[in-house]
């Protein structure tokens, strides 16, 4: 590879037998620009019109900071919980065959399909102090609905399929022989799982985590029903943006949006770098 580029000079792309590179790349860039880049640069543009000092005031406002903290904190916790239970669900679906497996498999996708507002209302109904589960938790002095805990529950709900669906196909491809090899070498089940299976799932788990996390940060519909939306306590950043919009304070809304954008971008970048590194290590990318 490197030798050919050295010989023939720099090429925009390496020659390929597959036709249509120009067309497909052109379409891809045009499409991404229209759908993603222009709207997002609009956010940056609007908030830039604010001036640095104003922007800083809004961004470091106590209420904004609290909302961002709740948004990203709850998303992080929810994504971590989803990693643990999503891998477990994927394991059950891949490894065991039992009556109703296909139904369970289909149920995993429901959070994808359901309008999140419906999910929010349903969760609120169940977890509110007079709801099904809420009434059981109330004597234990655990309040779910209208607290940050409720936000986490809603985010777990919407994030679960992302982890399951990214880990499941990779888990299906794990060679049974690799586990048998570990067993003949004397590794017990727990050692096989922790030292052989989980590490080889790591890249998929990272991807699932990143997707679940990103989805949770952007979630709005289900959270606003269960969160109670108490400023400084259970108010998420997307809701704060909507509140500012309703006050016709577009500048403040875009400023918060820009901060969210920056943090999300930075976190996804870090996750992707870790992922690229682990992929290279495990020989997927080569």
């Amino acid at each position: 590879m490197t030798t050919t580029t050295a010989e023939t000079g720099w090429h925009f792309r390496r020659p390929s037998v597959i036709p249509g590179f120009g067309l497909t790349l052109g379409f891809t860039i045009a499409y991404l620009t229209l759908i993603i880049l222009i709207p997002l640069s609009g956010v940056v543009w609007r908030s830039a019109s604010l001036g640095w000092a104003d922007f800083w005031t809004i961004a470091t406002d106590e209420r904004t900071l609290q909302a961002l903290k709740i948004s990203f904190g709850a998303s992080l916790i929810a994504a971590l919980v989803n990693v643990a239970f999503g891998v477990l669900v994927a394991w059950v679906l891949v490894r065991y065959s039992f009556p109703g497996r296909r139904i369970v498999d289909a149920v995993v996708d429901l959070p994808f399909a359901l309008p999140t507002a419906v999910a929010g209302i349903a969760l609120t109904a169940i977890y509110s102090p007079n709801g099904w589960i809420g009434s059981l938790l109330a004597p234990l002095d655990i309040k779910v609905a209208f607290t940050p805990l409720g936000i986490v529950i809603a985010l777990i709900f919407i994030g679960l399929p992302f982890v399951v669906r990214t880990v499941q196909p990779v888990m299906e491809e794990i060679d049974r022989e690799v586990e048998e090899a570990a067993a003949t070498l004397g590794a017990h089940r727990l050692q096989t799982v922790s030292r052989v299976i989980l590490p080889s799932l790591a890249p998929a788990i990272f991807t699932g985590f990143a997707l679940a996390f990103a989805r949770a940060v952007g979630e709005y519909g289900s959270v606003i029903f269960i969160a109670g939306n108490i400023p400084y306590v259970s108010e998420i950043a997307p809701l704060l943006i909507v509140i500012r919009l309703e006050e016709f304070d577009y500048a403040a809304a875009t400023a918060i949006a820009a901060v969210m954008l920056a943090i999300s971008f930075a976190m996804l970048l870090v996750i992707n770098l870790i992922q690229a590194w682990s992929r290279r290590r495990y020989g997927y990318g080569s």
Partner: protein
Amino acid sequence: MEVQVKNLRKEFDRFPALDDVSLGIRSGELIALLGPSGSGKTTLLRLIAGLETPTEGAIFFGDEDASRKTVQERNVGFVFQHYALFRHMTVLENVSFGLKVRPSATRPSRQAIRERALELLDLVQLSGLEKRYPAQLSGGQRQRVALARAMAIEPKVLLLDEPFGALDAQVRRDLRRWLRAIHDTTGHTTVFVTHDQEEALELADRVVVMNKGRIEQIGTADEVYDAPGSPFVYGFIGESSSLPVTVEGGQVLIADRPIGLTATDVPDGKALLYYRPHDIELLDGCGGCIAGTVAASRRVAGTRRVELEVGGARERVEVELPIDHPAAQKSRIAFRPTRWKLFPMGEGRPEEKMSVSRSQPLQRELAPAEF
């Protein structure tokens, strides 16, 4: 370590994959399990390893009943056809895995594990590659890592499941010789599965020929080739041709005419005559011979292989002729086998006729020098 397999039976969903198999393996022996696919050879290997549990029967490692032990406790080295390396671990980590997972009481020190792994990598000629990941190795190198990994735990027996099956022909030949050399230096009791008779005959001390879940014959390469114990072995190992004949008073007859072969130890009645196409003598006149018309003629390496149609039933047999023999179409050729064997036919034919040629396809164009 001596291995005794006693009356082993294994059923998968009521279908017997192994049927009453008994086998004694001497300590330090290199044994090949040879057979067509579905013959139960891999099942037998997996049962010895403990990766499957027998329906009936027992396996002894020395005096110990190994069938009561789990895979982990059996301490066997198993090498898989598709390597089954841990791809998130370096070569060194792969080889040391078996020692690292031992309980702390029996685990060597980190330094000792590292030394042992490096020593094994040296043995399999992979020194200097210990930091590589499996994805960065060729097929032959991966299989050698797998072998080093299996040997690291000082196994009682080394079991190899078609170890060279996924490699190309040239690499396979090289690794075969190299495995023999490794076996001779380390002296592990070794059992390997193959469907490649050349591999089995060249590599093994004794060959176990299997068919349909049973052992057909156990013997050295010379024994199974020169004295096949059953029509199946005759057909499966090396080239062979067969012809239905009748035995009457010690004389072998085709269509009521004697062919000049005497068989005193075979009971009268129908039988199958087996011989190898190269073990024949050509005859001029036919006063007691097998005669047939040439149906097809092929040049195979240094000889000419000719298909003859014999008798009214037009049974096809093969003979090998010198290159300069014309063997023109429709001409008549008379011959008599010099080495042959009769298998009396009980009810029906004892075995499908196996006169198909079994020469290995030549895949030299796929053979890079490195492996």
